[in-house]
């Protein structure tokens, strides 16, 4: 199993209620159902991926998370997972704010655009990175409309009074201990409203 999925699994309590925003083909929810007996639900905008989720036995809503999330009641879920999706949404602020309202804990992972390869790519070539590490898209094809770095995200949490419960930094599935914003390709966080 993917290392980031294993980390997410370890963060989640047995028998909990989980909402996966941008659940794709339902692989993560199916894994958590099997490992942690969660009651899961996904939101996914792509019809074919919704059908793949249904084929895995996942409950899924086909639609735009930014449209439906504001309508969900407070604390309806134990966890909301935003797995490598935050940088793709039109309004990350809205998604984060409502996620923190709808779930007790929000698990966020995203590709770190502060990684040294990205920095050197721009510095040396003067181009937006593509086809390196986890950054696979040309500027005109990328779904990543809001690229962010580990430092960006942690600053955001500080400004918005969001408590970071756990943070993990990965590079090639291995944990990064030093200078994560320079060395990690992926950041995984569990956050909650600070109280």
């Amino acid at each position: 199993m993917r290392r980031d999925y294993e980390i997410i699994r370890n963060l989640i309590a047995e028998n909990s209620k989980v909402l996966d925003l941008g659940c794709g083909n339902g692989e993560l929810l199916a894994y958590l159902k099997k490992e942690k007996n969660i009651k899961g639900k996904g939101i996914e905008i792509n019809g074919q991926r919704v059908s793949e989720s249904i084929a895995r036995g996942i409950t899924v809503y086909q639609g735009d998370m930014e449209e439906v999330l504001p309508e969900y009641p407070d604390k309806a879920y134990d966890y909301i997972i935003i797995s490598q999706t935050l940088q793709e949404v039109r309004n990350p602020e809205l998604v984060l704010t409502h996620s923190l309202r709808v779930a007790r804990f929000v698990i966020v992972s995203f590709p770190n655009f502060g990684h040294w390869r990205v920095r050197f790519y721009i510095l040396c070539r003067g181009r937006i990175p593509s086809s390196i590490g986890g950054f696979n898209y040309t500027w005109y094809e990328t779904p990543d409309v809001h690229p962010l770095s580990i430092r960006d995200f942690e600053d955001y949490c500080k400004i918005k009074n969001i408590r970071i419960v756990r943070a993990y930094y990965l590079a090639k599935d291995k944990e990064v201990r030093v200078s994560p914003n320079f060395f990690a390709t992926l950041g995984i966080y569990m956050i909650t409203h600070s109280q």
Partner: protein
Amino acid sequence: MEEVYYVETQYYTFAYPPNELKLESGEKLGPITLAYETYGELNKDKTNAILILHALSGDAHVAGYHKGDRKPGWWDNMVGPGKAFDTNKYFVICSNVIGGCKGSTGPSSINPATGKPYGLDFPVITIKDMVNAQRHLIDYLGIEKLLCVAGGSMGGMQVLQWTVSYPERVRSAIPIATASRNKAMQIAFNEVGRQAIMSDPNWNRGDYYDKTPPNTGLAIARMVGHITYLSEESMEQKFGRRLRQKEKYGYDFSIDFEVESYLHHQGLSFTQRFDANSYLYITKAIDYFDLADGYGSLFEAFSNSTHIKFLVISFTSDWLYPPSQSKEIVRALEANGIDVTYREIESSYGHDAFLLEAEEQTRIISSFLKYVYEEIE
């Protein structure tokens, strides 16, 4: 080569006086006959029964062939051995609605009080009445709990009504291309159809069973209805501005365009298989449909349905029962914490997509049913 699946229509009569069925209008109806068909085998524990509900012009003959027929039932691409509603696994039931003209008691049936067809003496029926009648059939078949209720359009309305009227009898539900209430535009189209029928002199206030029926009115009603089942895109693809068997315009009011010819054919062939009074009664039942009625809100209506698993399906180009109305249903279910999956299938076929988009529906419905069935096994 696929094996030909033969099936026969069966009949169940109940609600004999003095135990008539009490209707929503306050009137009583009885005796009532329901025409129905079954496919596959009911298992020992009677846990594999699926009830399929038909749309406005449908009937009990959902799949397979009647002996001597060249065309199969109306949802044969979805119901049968190895199909979405797999009759090797499930026991599938489909019944004709009351008010219909395909073997169930309706305005063309003989009124026992007069010995003549009911005509307008037939009481106005509602979706809830249709479902109440079906419940008697399910009782008679000895089924305590249906594995699933499924259907499109008016069939979907019956699905929703089942989950609200008899939640304890339903494990899962698949409402397709439908709505929790008929809205102004939908009522408007139905009213045009009814006026076409009632303006036909042959209608004769519904008393025409020993005379020429109001075929012109019924055909026009069907033409209007049929337009609402298609989409701008599918009509453009199918007909465009192509002329019918001519090179240039006729400069008269004969048929010029292919689309006109198609609608005339649809209207005419409908008069061969449908009763005008049934069209009036069933469209009225659809117009009266408002699931929230008597509950205060749609959210309240579903408050006893929390154990039911839902799969709600809509189609992108359906403008008669658009995805927005399916989403209203999904929101009300979600607000109750009900397990609901929503799929909006990309299709250019308009409302008719629920009859035509077999491949994608098969994929999701067969998976959905598999998991629901596994839970009880």
